[in-house]
């Protein structure tokens, strides 16, 4: 089923026309209301009047994540504060968090795109959807929630964590759809197996997994272990949260709701726009957003676009499932982690060399992060308990900065490669 056939199966010509119209409006509004964008456009020598069609988007400057941080908290707000109905932020693990401010219309659009995504995945008003994405500042929980309200399905706002309760809820309320991160779905399957739950006997039939990269192998495992179909959902706080793109049952990429979120693929080094089918960095312009609209936002996600009409009947463009990142960001249990954050913590602490190695692994379906640190003369003690205490202290500091638990492992001096290359600094043993 298609939630909004008019928009999702639109003929490409009309779509382009609509996109051009909205882009024109967006640029004019940002130029007039957001000094940050006025300055950027002036620097590029572009005036709102220069934007006549969607093709003219190429003349506009990019927006980076750093710029979002620099303008924290309200620097990119394009409406009066009284218009804001809801604020969400990214985890803010690398300094200031990224802010998404939603007006009434933004929440309406969010509900609409999530209704499209859920419908595309096969969710209907007859479903009981157990929403195990976190509710709160994280966009996952409420985004899915709004979509459920729009399509009229029964949503169970259980939020993340509390695995035993998740399993009990699956059985007590006969949940037919589960929304969570792919690694959590597998973890749930494992705990369920230990509890003797036969998933094939439950009504659960669909898992909508997102917020972290996953592979076909993981899809196979989730489907097999939970006796479900598993589909991918894509979104990011900067753009709107979940509901930017969704995979349909044909499993041939994720449909981007491009009437709201205009995608481009660029060469991350040169900024040059690449043709369809070529791999590069995904850039998104929020054509219709009111609160915190963004022009050509560089997501740092690597993918490519597929333009052909899909067997599901939708004409809107698709993106291949994420192929990687342009930076060395790691996604651990759904939380974004940058190696530089770890470096900052280590540099701040006395007696620690700024050399470290990160080992990411998956134990019992949950991501683990081991931080290898070189033992130094200053940290060294003749007593094991003192060394263990030092390790715990570093873990505590890292938790304060990253918001996830790490395991510090001391290694011998000079045993960590000195090159700053990503391959040597990060060992990712997960099979994504």
């Amino acid at each position, binding site marked *: 089923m298609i939630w909004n056939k008019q928009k999702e199966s639109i003929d490409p010509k009309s779509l382009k026309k609509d996109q051009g119209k909205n882009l024109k409006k967006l640029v004019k509004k940002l130029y007039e209301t957001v000094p940050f964008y006025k300055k950027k456009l002036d620097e590029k020598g572009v005036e709102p009047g220069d934007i006549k069609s969607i093709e003219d988007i190429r003349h506009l400057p990019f927006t980076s994540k750093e710029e979002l941080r620099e303008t924290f908290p309200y620097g990119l707000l394009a409406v009066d504060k009284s218009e804001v109905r809801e604020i969400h932020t990214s985890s803010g693990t690398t300094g200031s968090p990224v802010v998404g401010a939603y007006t009434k219309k933004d929440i309406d659009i969010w509900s609409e795109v999530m209704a499209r995504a859920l419908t595309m995945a096969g969710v209907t008003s007859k479903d009981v959807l157990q929403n195990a994405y976190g509710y709160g500042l994280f966009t996952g929980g409420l985004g899915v929630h709004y979509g459920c309200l729009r399509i009229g399905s029964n949503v169970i706002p259980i939020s993340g964590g509390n695995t035993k309760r998740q399993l009990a809820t699956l059985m007590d309320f006969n949940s037919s759809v589960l929304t969570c991160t792919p690694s959590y779905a597998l973890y749930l399957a494992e705990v369920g197996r230990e509890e003797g739950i036969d998933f094939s006997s439950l009504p659960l039939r669909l898992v909508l997994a997102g917020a972290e990269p996953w592979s076909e192998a993981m899809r196979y495992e989730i489907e097999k272990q939970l006796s479900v179909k598993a589909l991918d959902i894509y979104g990011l706080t900067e753009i709107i949260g979940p509901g930017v793109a969704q995979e349909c049952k044909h499993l041939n990429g994720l449909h981007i709701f491009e009437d709201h979120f205009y995608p481009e693929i660029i060469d991350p080094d040169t900024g040059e726009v690449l043709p369809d089918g070529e791999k590069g960095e995904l850039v998104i312009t929020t054509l219709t957003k009111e609160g915190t609209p963004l022009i050509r936002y560089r997501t740092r996600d690597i993918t490519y676009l597929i333009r052909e009409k899909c067997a599901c009947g939708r004409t809107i463009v698709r993106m291949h499932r994420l192929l990687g990142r342009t930076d060395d960001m790691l996604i651990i249990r759904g939380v974004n982690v940058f190696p530089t954050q770890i470096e900052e913590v280590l540099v701040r602490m006395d007696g620690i060399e700024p050399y470290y190695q990160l080992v990411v692994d998956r134990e019992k379906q949950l991501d683990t992060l081991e931080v290898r640190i*070189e*033992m130094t003369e200053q940290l*060294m*003690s*003749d*007593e*094991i308990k003192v060394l263990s205490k030092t390790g715990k202290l570093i873990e505590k500091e890292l938790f304060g900065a990253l918001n996830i638990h790490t395991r510090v492992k*001391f290694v*011998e*001096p000079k045993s960590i490669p000195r090159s700053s290359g990503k391959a040597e600094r990060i060992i990712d043993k997960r099979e994504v």
Partner: protein
Amino acid sequence: MEIKQISIFLENKKGRLAAITNVLADNNINIRALSLADTKEFGVLRIVVNEHTKCLNALKINGYAAQETYVIAVEVPDSPGGLCGILKLLEDNDHNVEYMYAMVEKNRNNAVVIFKIGDFKKAIELLKSNNVSIVNASVLKNL
């Protein structure tokens, strides 16, 4: 009366212990006493050697994380209850033994045990006033 002990960080990996003893051998350093404390992932090798400063330098030059601490070497009667008496004396006077280990060699008819005690100066006074024989660095060197 206190003696210096060197503690060296070791990863729990094959060949690490051999590599350290190789550094000592190359520098003509003789181990007088040693103990290895280990966890799942790392170990701490504690040694008392004949040439302390030379040993510490050699280890640092070879890139080891090494640190020095003061410990006490005590002569313990080599008979049942010998160690017990000393430990009781320390305990009765509120000294906590962080760790201890016995020496490889024997001094005459007594065993030598190395003690790590927080307030080693006070502990030495206590042991001395109770006629416990403490081995000093120069004696230990030639044992």
